């Protein structure tokens, strides 16, 4: 770690300089008035199918994913592959639910999921619950992106003493903060194109070159300890690892699109059709993620953890150093520069979108709802820009001063928390049957029980639920959202009978969730139609 890899570093810095320029230049791309929140925070809802593909791909498949999934395969084996079924089942959900949300948000100018909940259920406290959950769940996620960045910077051989060692991270973050502030969502959208191309190059080079060097997949898997190759068969009276695997995949999938940054990426699409098309096109990233997960096994087969030159890296970053070590071991320095830049830029794209999403939430659903009810467009956009800075600064402080383990724990809790907004947001896209206070009660039950279960399980993602002597170990988030829905279903008729509830009218109409008839043909041929585009009604 004490030797700086100069060739790799120069290429890494050059690529970062390029995306910095691109991030600032993006302000002029499909130019809009950045003093309006939907222009700054949603790119004017103008991204067609292809840009949406890059943006949502860059948003969901984060740098941390590319580091952590192979690291989990390296450390724990087959269970890490749950990321593959997880990314398979997200797309039917995207296809079915999100075009409806897109149409209703477009029609009513909603910018955040909480805007939608506020309009649908008329309860500002329910909307506040969705808002706070979104912001709190996103913060550790941003911090984890920084961890991904830290790992590749460490891999370049840059290590300083004390806080000086964090200087590169601080620089990268200042750059990120500056272009997000000036260009809004256009910055990560344009940078995502560069990042995704670099990541694809890296991934395909790695899964082609490394297996050849290692003598083929048969040899690689022969080197992996037998208990890591497959899931452990469940013992008697338990669903064992099978239950954990399936519930992790399904629960993570349900949680993913509830994160505010996913919603931001999706709402910036120019049409519901762009979203449906992307449900068929985004699996391209899933395939890459699955192939990248295999890098964990390559790292086992290449025994990189035992090589003295990587000992310091593994000591500092643990299994997260498996991918950087593998790339350093097999590729020339110039390619390492490209690969590390891909991962590093891959951290900035989601971090930018996450901070924008949090800023939109604060501005719309806390500031506007509770502090200043009638901001001008300019005030609103300015507020969001400032909040995006504060959010990023918070994540930076978190990453530098607190152990990485805290961010990982909080991110785990974040998954359990964010999924509790499912009844209001996803089911809310289909029905207003639920009583608004019943939804609040379900949310609270899910948050409290989920947090207690996670702590009781020592921050393992799965909890060993036992019913009548039969064990169902599974993902805490999935179990607690089931509890959440049950509470909401039971309390809805009860509270309605007691006349508890906001009684506010639903400001959305069933037709708002559908494409306006005349706009359908129009949007198919012109995905980049200018906003605001109101269909003839």
């Amino acid at each position, binding site marked *: 770690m004490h030797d700086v890899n100069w060739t790799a570093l120069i290429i890494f810095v050059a690529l970062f300089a390029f995306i910095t320029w691109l991030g600032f230049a993006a302000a002029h791309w499909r130019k809009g008035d950045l003093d309006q929140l939907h222009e700054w925070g949603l790119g004017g809802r103008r991204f067609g199918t292809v840009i949406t593909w890059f943006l949502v791909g860059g948003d969901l498949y984060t740098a941390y994913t590319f580091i952590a999934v192979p690291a989990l395969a390296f450390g724990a084996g087959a269970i890490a592959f749950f990321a593959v079924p997880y990314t398979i089942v997200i797309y039917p959900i995207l296809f079915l639910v999100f075009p409806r949300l897109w149409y209703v948000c477009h029609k009513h100018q909603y910018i955040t999921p909480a805007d939608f909940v506020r309009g649908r259920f008329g309860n500002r406290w329910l909307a506040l619950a969705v808002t706070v959950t979104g912001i709190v769940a996103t913060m550790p996620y941003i911090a984890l992106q920084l961890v991904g960045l830290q790992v590749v910077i460490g891999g370049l051989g840059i290590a300083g003493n004390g806080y000086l060692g964090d200087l590169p991270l601080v620089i990268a973050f200042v750059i990120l903060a500056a272009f997000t502030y000036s260009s809004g969502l256009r910055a990560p959208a344009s940078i995502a194109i560069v990042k995704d191309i670099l990541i694809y190059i890296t991934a395909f080079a790695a899964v082609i070159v490394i297996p050849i060097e290692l003598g083929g997949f048969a040899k*690689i898997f022969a080197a992996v300890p037998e208990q890591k190759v497959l899931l452990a*068969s469940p013992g008697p009276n338990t669903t064992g690892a099978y239950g954990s695997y399936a519930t992790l995949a399904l629960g993570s999938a349900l949680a993913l699109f509830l994160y505010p940054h996913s919603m931001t990426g999706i709402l910036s699409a120019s049409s519901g059709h762009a979203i449906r098309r992307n449900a068929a096109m985004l699996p391209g990233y899933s395939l890459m993620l699955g192939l990248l997960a295999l890098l964990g096994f390559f790292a086992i087969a290449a025994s990189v953890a035992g090589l003295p030159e990587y000992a310091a890296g593994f000591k500092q970053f643990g299994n997260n150093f498996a991918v950087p070590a593998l790339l350093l071991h097999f590729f020339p320095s110039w390619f390492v520069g490209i690969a590390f830049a891909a991962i590093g830029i891959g951290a900035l794209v989601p971090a930018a979108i996450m901070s924008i999403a949090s800023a939109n939430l604060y501005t719309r659903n806390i500031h506007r709802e509770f502090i200043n009810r009638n901001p001008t467009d300019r005030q609103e956009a300015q507020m969001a820009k400032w909040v995006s800075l504060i959010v990023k600064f918070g994540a930076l402080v978190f990453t530098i001063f607190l152990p990485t383990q805290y961010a990982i724990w909080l991110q785990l809790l974040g998954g359990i928390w964010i999924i509790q907004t499912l009844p209001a947001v996803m089911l809310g896209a289909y029905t207003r049957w639920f009583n608004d206070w019943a939804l609040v009660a379900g949310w609270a039950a899910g948050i409290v029980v989920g947090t207690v279960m996670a702590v009781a399980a020592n921050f393992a993602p799965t909890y060993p639920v036992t019913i009548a002597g039969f064990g169902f170990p599974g993902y805490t988030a999935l179990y607690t959202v089931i509890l959440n829905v049950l509470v909401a279903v039971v309390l809805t008729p009860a509270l309605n009978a007691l006349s508890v509830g906001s009684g506010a009218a639903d400001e959305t109409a069933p037709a708002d*969730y559908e*494409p306006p008839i005349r706009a*359908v043909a129009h949007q198919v041929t012109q995905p980049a139609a200018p906003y605001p585009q109101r269909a003839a009604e």
Partner: protein
Amino acid sequence: MNGNRARRTGWSWWYLLFMIQFVAVLWPPFYNRVEPSLGGMPFFYWYQLLWVIIGAIFTAIVYFATDKRTEAVGPGLNS
């Protein structure tokens, strides 16, 4: 005319393709085995990677199948 809207997001039998995907990848007993391996890669891995591709194809099929319904409902809009 308003009948057109309701038909857009009603149930479609094509959505059953999504159910097939869910069952195929969320039931580990189907695929938690080494053989038959493909090019040295255990079944567990290539089966799931293959389903990424099948899933994408299924989604594309559903997209085109349900999209055509809209066009059938509103003829002449493209002209």
